């Protein structure tokens, strides 16, 4: 832009809206819901940033993206430089621009949000990252430093592992990622549906990291194929980011009936294996007509919206508190409602009912009411006597959470774990073993993509420092 806007003019611009696919159409396909901003809308949104001195938004970002700087470059229509800043600070900007809960992070701190609406930082991040992907020839060449001769092993190719790998490679270390599955991305690929994060975006981001020299070996389960002690012998440092583990069971009768899924299984079938989504995929999935999802987090929203797309007439969220207490992002809840998802609140499952052939036929439920706040600060749901009823369903999906994965830690007896089996790491991701760092869900239990990425970034910095002193 040639003419600088006055502060008053900037303040007068209203926040842009994300164009979305029509809800009725999209509820039956897997195309990405959010369509991305146009160039005009993005550049205008960038001018809404008042470039305040305190930069509170940066503090709100777990990976510390230089938000005002990249937005400033955007406002000047210098997209290559905006993209360079963004990719320097964030290993997976096109992912973050789509799945981060910005409303709870950077945007919640934006000073424009105190009297009006925050700058749409997430939309801008996505715009710049997508622009960089579409215009590789316009991007400045990345110059990597000379090799340090140090080798780092990263366990797991999910958000924490990829972020750490990118950071470490750009500091001149030789990075090898060991991935248990047959493809990249971890939860980004097996967990988050195509309509929120297209697989092509993950491929593109991972290819950029590969161009920094990151190597990825698939089908290696650390703890089974090789062990942590073997990795410590072979590498100068190890970063463990192998993610969440087994689903937490509901422990109600009927959980092993046919048609009952844990969220991870349901999503993995559809997202990673392509069941019901990619023509010719051989992995099957039971497509219910009446599908009940138990839970109120983002995973539950991903499941219920997937169920709609697989053809469910009734796709239902069963949650024991009210919508206000639901941990899911507001955008997910809004999108789910637009797509025809039913929200059955203040309801807890008692048992899953089966037919004579062992298939799910119903979900026995009980109404709840909110009582006193519990240790989490949320009001405790209390059963309402005599309110039991049966909901006719043919598929039930348990999306209440996961436990720590035991495979790696079982073969690393010296590694300190907490009582839930999660690895104990300090704020830099350092474990009790020398040169062994950890981050993401294996440390935190179930958390978000961006917190895992924050762990990857801070652990990479700590590994850099540790290797320099070695």
């Amino acid at each position: 832009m040639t003419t600088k806007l006055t502060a008053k003019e900037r303040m007068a611009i209203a926040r842009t809206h994300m164009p979305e696919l029509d809800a009725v159409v999209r509820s039956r396909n897997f195309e990405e819901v959010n369509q991305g901003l146009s160039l005009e809308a993005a550049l205008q949104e960038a001018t809404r940033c008042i470039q305040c001195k305190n930069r509170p938004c940066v503090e709100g970002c777990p990976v510390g993206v230089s938000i005002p700087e990249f937005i400033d470059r955007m406002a000047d229509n210098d997209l290559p430089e905006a993209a360079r800043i963004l990719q320097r600070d964030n290993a997976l900007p096109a992912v973050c621009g789509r799945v981060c809960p910005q409303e709870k992070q950077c945007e919640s701190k934006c000073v424009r949000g105190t009297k009006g609406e925050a700058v749409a930082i997430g939309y801008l991040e996505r715009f710049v990252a997508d622009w960089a992907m579409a215009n590789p020839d316009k991007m400045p060449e990345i110059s990597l430093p000379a090799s340090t001769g140090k080798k780092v092993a990263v366990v797991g190719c999910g958000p924490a592992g990829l972020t750490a790998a990118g950071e470490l490679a750009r500091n001149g270390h030789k990075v090898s990622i060991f991935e248990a599955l047959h493809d990249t991305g971890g939860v980004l690929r097996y967990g988050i549906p195509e309509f929120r994060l297209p697989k092509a975006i993950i491929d593109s981001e991972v290819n950029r990291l590969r161009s920094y020299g990151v190597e990825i070996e698939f089908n290696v389960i650390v703890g089974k194929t090789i062990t942590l002690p073997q990795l410590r012998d072979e590498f100068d440092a190890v970063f463990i980011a192998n993610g969440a583990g087994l689903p937490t069971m509901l422990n109600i009768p009927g959980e092993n009936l046919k048609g009952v899924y844990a969220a991870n299984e349901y999503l993995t079938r559809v997202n990673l294996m392509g069941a019901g989504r990619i023509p010719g995929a051989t992995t099957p999935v039971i497509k219910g007509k009446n599908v009940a999802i138990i839970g109120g987090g983002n995973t539950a929203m991903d499941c219920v919206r997937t169920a709609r797309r697989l053809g469910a007439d009734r796709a239902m969220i069963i949650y024991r508190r009210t919508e206000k207490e639901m941990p899911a992002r507001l955008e997910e809840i809004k999108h789910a409602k637009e797509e025809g998802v039913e929200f059955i609140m203040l309801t807890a499952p008692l048992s899953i009912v089966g037919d004579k052939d062992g298939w799910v036929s119903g979900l026995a439920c009980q109404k709840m009411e909110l009582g006193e706040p519990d240790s989490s600060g949320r009001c405790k749901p209390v059963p309402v006597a005599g309110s039991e009823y049966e909901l006719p369903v043919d598929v039930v999906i348990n999306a209440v959470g996961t436990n720590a994965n035991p495979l790696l830690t079982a073969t690393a007896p010296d590694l300190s774990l907490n009582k839930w089996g999660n690895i104990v790491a300090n704020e830099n991701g350092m474990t009790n073993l020398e040169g062994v760092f950890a981050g993401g869900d294996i440390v935190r239990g179930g958390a978000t993509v961006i917190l895992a990425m924050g762990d990857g970034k801070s652990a990479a910095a700590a590994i850099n420092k540790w290797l320099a002193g070695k």
Partner: protein
Amino acid sequence: MFEVLSNTVIGPSLHRMVIRAPRIAAARKPGQFVIVRLAEGEERIPLTIGDANMAEGTITLFIQAVGASTRMIVATPVGGSIRDIAGPLGKPTHIERWGRVACVGGGVGTAVLYPLAKALADAGNEVTTIIGGRAANLIILKDELAAFSSKVLITTEDGSMGRKGFVTMELADLLADPATCPHAVFAIGPVPMMKAVSELTRPQAVPTYVSLNPIMIDGTGMCGGCRVTVGGESKFACVDGPEFNAHQVDFDNLFARLGTYREHEAADCRLKEQVKS
């Protein structure tokens, strides 16, 4: 990519495939399995590792072509390759010196039984092996098993080899005589066979172990699809198993869950046949 080094037909629809997989060959112990995915877009299928050669960096898989995916896997020629093999997964068999043990194999389960029986013999156990199948051409590995077993007893449903009937008849005879009654029983085969063996040994409380092969996707303790009811609790075959105390396993639920995708598989097979013709 994992290169196929040999592919031999050892029975109707039953193949022995030797595959280069050095990391798995080095780490594998009897009782463990791998997850195999032939190519992009194909299913992930759990298969027990039949044998391994650490020096050569190879593993042996015994594969019965029962569905569309296994048929495509066994159709891989020597020199061809399998895109993904992940493992070794599951807990290894707990091998101890019981004294006298009976190893019972049914159909392709005999192939899975083989490394286990061998490890038990190597540990100093007196191994009696009982193998069964519908007919003589489905009896596999009898000479290999005879190399270390004190006795190999064979049953076929049509009487075309060994005793006419089921493996449980031979096992019942062993159990009835204090001089032959095993101190532990290991059974691997179709679910109804493992259930029958379990019921047979229960009254005498002979420790009995079975290897389960439920539906699985990742095999690493992530999806929870392989859960089985053992002792009234949900256990995950991929991380807690695949071997369990037979007397605690809910075989009926396992059998039911294995049928979840039966209709899908039948449709898939028909589709692939149509495409071929």
